[in-house]
């Protein structure tokens, strides 16, 4: 049977779905690794329930993992999938609506024989019989039966054997996409090295799936996604939150400062804390604080003490940090605050993604309290955005809020591993020992940045605090004109950071009449939409903002070039309103979605087309 044709594809989206315990996150990750090793570009997104082990066989308990691989640039994890692996009826129920017409659907038929499972999933008719699968290419596999057969002689208990079902599914997928089993077998060996029986069972399940696919009648052809023409280099697949952690460590190395993280766990930001806590070998100090306030306050202390200080959180945690951010602003200390946004308000939908913390990042503090705000564009960009946030914070002695989100924080992307020495050096304005002219709030006349005198340094003893202080000496003061001056200086200092960041670039078709604006984690979707629009004869320009406060110097000039400006964001219109206040006089239209879900490329295309016409 293996002489079937191989169809070459530009790109393909695969979704793995099962119960929380079915190991779909792992299956998806391993499939991604195999694709990455074969040179495909890729983007992934996990999508799991809020519950740790949500009730079995329910729709709310389905855990999914979507992988988009391509031989061209892959910008999102994909709107609709071409292949669905559904380990039980609930997975089918939950996902079918997002399948492309004609998609291949691989079903674990054993689970579909279970009446209760069908009922729990909300099926009133059996999906095999009610024509709901007619327009799809359905591949049925009695996965449970087959893994049991394949491992019968190993003498394992059924529970352990059942845990290998995901490997069977993966085997099918690897066959269909003409990938080798090598990287997966290596993983199994590494993971189960100490449990040889389980290693063997998993390998057999994997192989059984592979062979099953080979023997399958229904499979008329297999597919191949060629390697993407990527620049030469070392690559890996990287998760956004991990990339953020790495970017911060890289910044610590490039600035020569110790790295300190004060943080309190919160979904979806916890993984940054987890990653950083692994790196004691590099001297990274992580402090799991008693709450978010202690997280940021310990970081402020660490910053005063001379570290590259970080705090990481998500929306509700950023709320709690508001007061202390003000302290960092008025003491003019460097501090990187990473907010991995999730759907709000309040506890909201912790496992869903959104861009609705922008207002809070810009305005959520008492008094006139400006600080830098930046946003990362993609999982891999988290590395560079975190590095850049640290650089600006250290060089300008000001807190920076870096916005990422659950979508790019949990999602992954192919990442070309940079060489550290290719990253810019970072120059924090450290004061010199025994500088008799040292004044804590004396400023560089160009940048308005004050000098950082670290405790222990001889001759620079001084005090800082949250009260208003005189410029220069930093003595506590309630003098009206001094206060006005300090308020103005703090604002100007932040504004002047515009001189240390690149100008805003344009993509798509800059000569068009219409400018599409996006920021943060929607880059992939919006830029894909812009490409599609161009291909379908509706060229538009695209400006994707990474630097939000301050905006790049040429923002005003760019905005002035276009007749129509459409700002697309996953909130009620926070960036567009920010543009309205900072750059009034332009005609802004907006496209918003607040559903805890990323943009679909197709909905962006449709909307933009409808506005243009």
């Amino acid at each position: 049977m293996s002489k079937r044709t191989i169809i070459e594809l530009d790109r393909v989206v695969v979704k793995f779905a099962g119960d929380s315990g079915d190991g779909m996150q792992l299956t998806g990750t391993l499939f991604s690794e195999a694709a990455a090793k074969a040179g495909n570009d890729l983007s992934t997104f996990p999508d799991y329930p809020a519950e740790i082990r949500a009730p079995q066989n329910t729709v709310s308990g389905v855990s999914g993992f979507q992988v988009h691989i391509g031989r061209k640039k892959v910008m999102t994890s994909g709107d609709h999938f071409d292949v669905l692996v559904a380990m039980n009826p609930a997975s089918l129920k939950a996902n079918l609506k997002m399948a492309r017409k004609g998609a291949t659907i691989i079903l674990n038929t054993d689970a579909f024989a279970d009446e209760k499972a069908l009922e729990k999933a909300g099926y009133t008719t059996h999906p095999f019989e009610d024509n709901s699968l007619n327009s799809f290419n359905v591949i049925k596999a009695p996965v449970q039966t087959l893994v049991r057969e394949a491992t019968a002689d190993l003498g394992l208990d059924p529970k352990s054997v059942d845990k290998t079902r995901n490997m069977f599914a993966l085997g099918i997928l690897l066959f269909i996409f003409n990938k080798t089993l090598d990287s997966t077998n290596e993983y199994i060996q590494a993971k189960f090295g100490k449990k040889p029986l389980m290693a063997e069972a998993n390998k057999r399940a994997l192989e059984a799936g592979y062979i099953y696919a080979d023997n399958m009648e229904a499979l008329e052809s297999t597919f191949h996604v060629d390697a993407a023409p990527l620049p030469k280099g070392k690559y890996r697949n990287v998760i956004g939150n991990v990339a953020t952690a790495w970017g911060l460590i890289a910044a610590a190395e490039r600035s020569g400062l110790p790295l300190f993280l004060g943080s309190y766990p919160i979904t979806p930001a916890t993984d940054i804390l987890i990653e950083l806590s692994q790196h004691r070998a590099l001297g990274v100090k992580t402090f799991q604080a008693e709450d978010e306030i202690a997280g940021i306050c310990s970081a402020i202390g660490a910053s005063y003490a001379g570290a590259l200080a970080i705090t990481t959180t998500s929306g509700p945690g950023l709320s709690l940090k508001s007061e202390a951010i003000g302290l960092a602003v008025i003491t003019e200390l460097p501090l990187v605050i990473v907010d991995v946004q999730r759907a709000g308000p309040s506890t909201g939908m912790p496992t869903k993604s959104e861009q609705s913390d922008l207002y809070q990042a810009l305005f959520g503090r008492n008094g006139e309290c400006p600080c830098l705000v930046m946003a990362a564009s993609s999982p891999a960009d988290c590395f560079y955005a975190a590095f850049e946030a640290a650089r600006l914070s250290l060089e300008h002695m000001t807190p920076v809020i870096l916005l990422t989100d659950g979508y790019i924080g949990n999602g992954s992307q192919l990442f070309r591993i940079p060489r550290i020495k290719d990253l810019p050096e970072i120059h924090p304005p450290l004061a010199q020992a025994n500088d008799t002219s040292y004044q804590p709030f004396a400023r560089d006349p160009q940048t308005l940045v004050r000098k950082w005198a670290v405790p222990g340094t001889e001759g620079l003893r001084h005090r800082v605090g949250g009260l208003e202080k005189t410029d220069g000496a930093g003595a506590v003061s309630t003098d009206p004109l001094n206060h006005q001056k300090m308020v103005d200086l703090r604002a100007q200092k932040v504004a002047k950071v515009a001189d240390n960041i690149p100008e805003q670039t344009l993509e798509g078709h800059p000569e068009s009449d219409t400018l599409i604006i996006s920021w943060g984690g929607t880059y992939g979707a919006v830029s894909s939409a812009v490409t599609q629009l161009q291909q379908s004869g509706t060229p538009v320009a695209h400006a994707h903002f990474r630097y939000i406060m301050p905006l790049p110097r040429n923002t005003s000039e760019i905005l002035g070039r276009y007749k129509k400006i459409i700002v697309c964001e996953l909130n009620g219109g926070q960036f567009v309103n920010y543009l309205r206040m900072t750059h009034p006089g332009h005609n802004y239209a907006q496209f918003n979605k607040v559903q805890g879900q990323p943009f679909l490329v197709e909905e962006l295309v449709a909307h933009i087309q409808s506005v243009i016409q």
Partner: protein
Amino acid sequence: MSTTQIPLSNTPLTKDDFLSDQMVKWCPGCGGHAILNSVAQTFARAGFRQENYMMVSGIGCSSRIPYYLNTYGFHGIHGRAAAIASGIKIVRPDLSVWVSSGDGDSMAIGGNHFIHLVRRNLDITVLLFNNQIYGLTKGQYSPTTPMGKITKTSPFGTIEHPFNPGELVLGSQGTFFARVADNSPKQMTEVMYAASQHKGTAIIEILENCVIFADKAHARITSRETRDDNQLWLEHGKPMLFGAEMKKGIRLNGTTLEVVTLGENGVTLQDILVHDQHTDDPALHLLLAEMKAPVAMGVLRSVEAPTYEDLLEEQIATQHTSHPVQSIEDVMNSGDVFDI
């Protein structure tokens, strides 16, 4: 264990070296003045390098102290001094880190950071100015204000059971707790010095008089007329005797402490408890902390336990030498990496 040492000063320092040129803005008669004096004296005596002293505070009258000391200083936000100080100490174990804070700052808004600091046992000393009132905001009751007290926000008397700082510290796994009165300068300096030498979190409750909003709150314990009978000055290894003639003493009866008089009812020195500040068992320290008459002063508890920052440095040292990955480039290049 890789205990970082705090460097000592090359030259001897005096109290005056530690007083800044800033105008002291406490009310005349406020207990703060004497406390400041003792702090400066202690800093000189402990002898660390002047640049390596770090005073951190929150907000309150008590939190003004960083401005008055000629050291590195951080005047934080209300209640958060313990958290700020923790970050400093973790990054820089070579600093002698001190916190000054009030009963409101540390027991009201800052209560959580306070108990967590104690539990983690970072090597930080907290000067807890307990004046049983919110001074800076002009006289509202605090978590240590005695039940029934009339204040600006309790015109009919408070209805809250107050914290006893010593009990809270013990309940939070504290390794060092001391109590002292603001009008006993020698004892203050002694206790502060002991704290400076303790490896771990040291809490010093200072019975401070706020002349404006809670005048004489501690008078029974601290006034010249009554203090001999109401203070028990504890010294390690010494019997717990007090009174003008040191004839009264403390005896253990079951699990309660009782006051006895030497020579009365056959009581001899043998019957008197001997203070052991180093015993791990907190029960006796608890009884001392909650004793009302007399009130136990001095170092109630001082036991050894590993500090957070030492354990952390140890982990780093171990990982650094044992781990193959030595830079972020190594990290990024390990695992599933491939060339294109």
